[in-house]
């Protein structure tokens, strides 16, 4: 209770939040997650801002065709076998029209959430129509409407989707096609359509988020942005990118688009902010220059196979966060992962459990390992732990940063921001934060301390290890660490007698300063406080402040 009255006053101010922002709460939720809530990585949750704008501004979208004037904007036909494109072509395409109609239906459907509640309670599993689930369908009525829209526009529905890393996607399409950007996981569909979210630095705008969509024609996509902004304010122009590819650029008040394509696909980069937020023509052109549309126009489309695992992760891409490979902790992790890879391959046991949670009354420690959902698995966990002389975690607390410092024995990092942390009974903890580095701006980091002698099931996929360079470094507190720099990740490892520390950061590589940045981050950490593990005072979760 820092100051109840002040919190109340702030709480009252929330009553004056504009309607448009309140609408976002529902729109973002509806367009992104209904009926398909599992395993959505942050970056894979695409869609959306643009789709919402598309829905909100449907009438404007229709008007837009007139505002822009098809005739003024049609491209010269000469030597452009890659077709189109004006915004009008795009907005009036069957794919976008169907998308718009579907989004419009979603906004009006189940306004009180009762159908959703019912589906959540009883489950919704349309046998033989699993394709509906790719569109967030959670009732037969929705599925039938989806079918109806697809039929009306002569489009097929997606049948499979696979998530993969950006590197895997680039390998499939035949090369690197975006420079100087941080890219999240990608969603690839059975017909080769894909999309992902990324961010890049644009001069004067700072770190700018964008979505990229490759939409193969003939299918109702479900994610592509439509049309947004006030058509009066839109500006559209032709631009030949640095790699010599023709594009159409559109800049509106609240979003911007880069559009091109080939005869069988649309290619689009969508920026969810427009000139109201400071994006300029030059910014948009700079973004277009970072994308090699040539590769994308000619590429062999990637494929998602529904039978394939969601991501294929080879052993060499995974690293243990509990110790080096010869440590019992890492060896136990490998054995556990091998067991998981073959256990319940037909999902019968998991399916039988349904949405329920496996609880072994007498073995609460198994509950600390989220992957355990049967006695057989728990017993295997025991067996592996015993084989390598390890204990299992028994208790976890969720605590605020100050409490973390208390429990580990002091302030171990000089940073600008720390999230709440979770800490186990042996002193293992995980926390995230921000730190502002000289010449490198603010970066996010993840910090994990594993305590030796306990089994941890956490690992990290770093992509291809061949892409990393590593070096030894002595930090300012005179502790030796191993640093590794990959294409878009920096890693810090410190191996001590009682614990193993991992710090991961994500940032852009190639500007020559990242190595120094990583070293600077390592210097900000006082490993002396962490290397000797204090058994933490497990006095429960921290209490949230009133404003939380």
């Amino acid at each position, binding site marked *: 209770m820092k100051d109840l009255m002040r919190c109340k006053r*702030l709480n009252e101010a929330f009553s004056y939040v504009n*309607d448009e922002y309140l609408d976002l709460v529902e729109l973002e939720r509806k367009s992104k997650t209904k009926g398909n809530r599992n395993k959505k990585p*942050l970056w894979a*949750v695409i869609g959306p801002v643009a789709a919402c704008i598309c829905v909100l501004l449907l009438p404007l979208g229709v008007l837009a065709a007139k505002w822009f004037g098809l005739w003024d904007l049609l491209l010269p036909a000469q030597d452009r076998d890659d077709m189109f494109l004006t915004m009008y072509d795009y907005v009036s395409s069957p794919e976008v029209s169907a998308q718009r109609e579907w989004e419009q239906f979603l906004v009006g459907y189940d*306004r*009180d*959430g009762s159908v959703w509640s019912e589906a959540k309670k009883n489950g919704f599993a349309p046998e033989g129509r699993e394709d509906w689930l790719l569109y967030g369908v959670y009732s037969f009525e929705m599925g039938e409407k989806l079918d109806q829209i697809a039929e009306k526009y002569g489009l097929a529905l997606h049948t499979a989707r696979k998530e993969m890393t950006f590197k895997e996607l680039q390998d499939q399409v035949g090369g690197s096609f975006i420079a100087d950007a941080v890219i999240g996981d990608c969603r690839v569909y059975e017909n080769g359509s894909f999309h992902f979210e990324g961010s890049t630095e644009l001069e004067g705008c700072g770190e700018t988020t964008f979505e990229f969509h490759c939409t193969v024609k003939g299918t109702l996509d479900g994610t592509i942005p439509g049309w947004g902004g006030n058509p009066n304010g839109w500006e559209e122009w032709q631009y030949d990118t640095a790699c010599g590819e023709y594009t159409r650029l559109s800049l509106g008040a609240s979003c911007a688009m880069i559009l091109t394509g080939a005869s069988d696909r649309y290619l689009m980069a969508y920026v969810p902010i427009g000139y109201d937020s400071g994006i300029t023509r030059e910014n948009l052109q700079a973004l277009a220059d970072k994308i090699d549309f040539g590769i994308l126009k000619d590429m062999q489309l990637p494929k998602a196979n529904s039978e394939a695992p969601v991501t294929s992760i080879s052993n060499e891409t995974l690293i243990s966060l509990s110790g080096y490979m010869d440590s019992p902790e890492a060896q136990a992790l490998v054995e556990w992962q091998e067991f998981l890879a073959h256990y319940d391959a037909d999902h019968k046991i998991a399916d039988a459990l349904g949405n329920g949670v496996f609880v072994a009354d007498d073995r609460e420690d198994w509950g600390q390992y989220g992957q355990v959902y049967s006695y057989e698995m728990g017993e295997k966990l025991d067996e592996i732990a015993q084989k390598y002389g390890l204990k299992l975690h028994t208790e976890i607390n969720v605590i605020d940063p100050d409490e973390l410092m208390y429990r580990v024995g002091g302030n171990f990092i000089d940073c600008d921001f720390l999230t*709440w942390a979770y800490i186990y009974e042996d002193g293992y903890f995980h926390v995230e934060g921000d730190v502002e580095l000289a010449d490198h701006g603010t970066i996010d980091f993840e910090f994990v301390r594993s305590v030796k002698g306990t089994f941890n099931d956490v690992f990290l996929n770093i992509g291809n290890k061949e892409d990393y360079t590593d070096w030894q470094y002595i930090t300012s507190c005179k502790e030796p660490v191993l640093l590794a720099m990959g294409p878009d990740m920096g890693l810090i490892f410190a191996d001590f007698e009682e614990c193993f520390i991992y710090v991961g950061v994500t940032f852009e590589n190639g500007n020559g300063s990242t190595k120094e940045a990583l070293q600077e981050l390592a210097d900000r950490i006082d490993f002396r406080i962490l290397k000797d593990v204090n058994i933490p005072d497990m006095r429960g979760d921290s209490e949230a402040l009133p404003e939380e």
Partner: protein
Amino acid sequence: MEDTEIIAMYFERQEAAIQETGNKYGAYLNTVAYNILRCFDDTEEVVDDTYMAAWNKIPPTKPNSLKHFLSRITRNLSFDRLDYRNAKKRSGLFVELDECIPDRRSDMELIWEAKEIGRVLNEFLQTLDSKTCAIFLARYYYAYSVKEIAEQYGLPERRVKYLLEKNRNNLRLFFEKEGVMI
């Protein structure tokens, strides 16, 4: 029924307006109230009170968005109810003293102040991307729990906590920059 029709019924003083409001927004208002109160009995009473408040306010008020007009009433009433519930747990002395304090909502100065803070809050929300803005308001306007938000937006709970914590911090800095004293 369209909002404009429902509002017209209020203006014509047709009691059916309340029923139509309930038909259209009852479930939504229940959610708003329940998220704050976490108690079905109180929720029901607050939503009933919301209808009465709407009846008293329309006319002369003609809301642009009936939905959000109602949600604001429900939200305020829910927090009032929560205060009342908490007050009952406080010592008798506090409860007695509380009776000496004038009704805050009739204090124009405080209302003006809340509006001013609200104005700056809107400016802050404008700086957020849509998803972050939605998550922030899901928590601080609609009072959804972190777990519920994580489920609704398909994000890990950890990520939701991170976003909330980071943006609370950013809001504080924004207030400081704008010279807002709370």
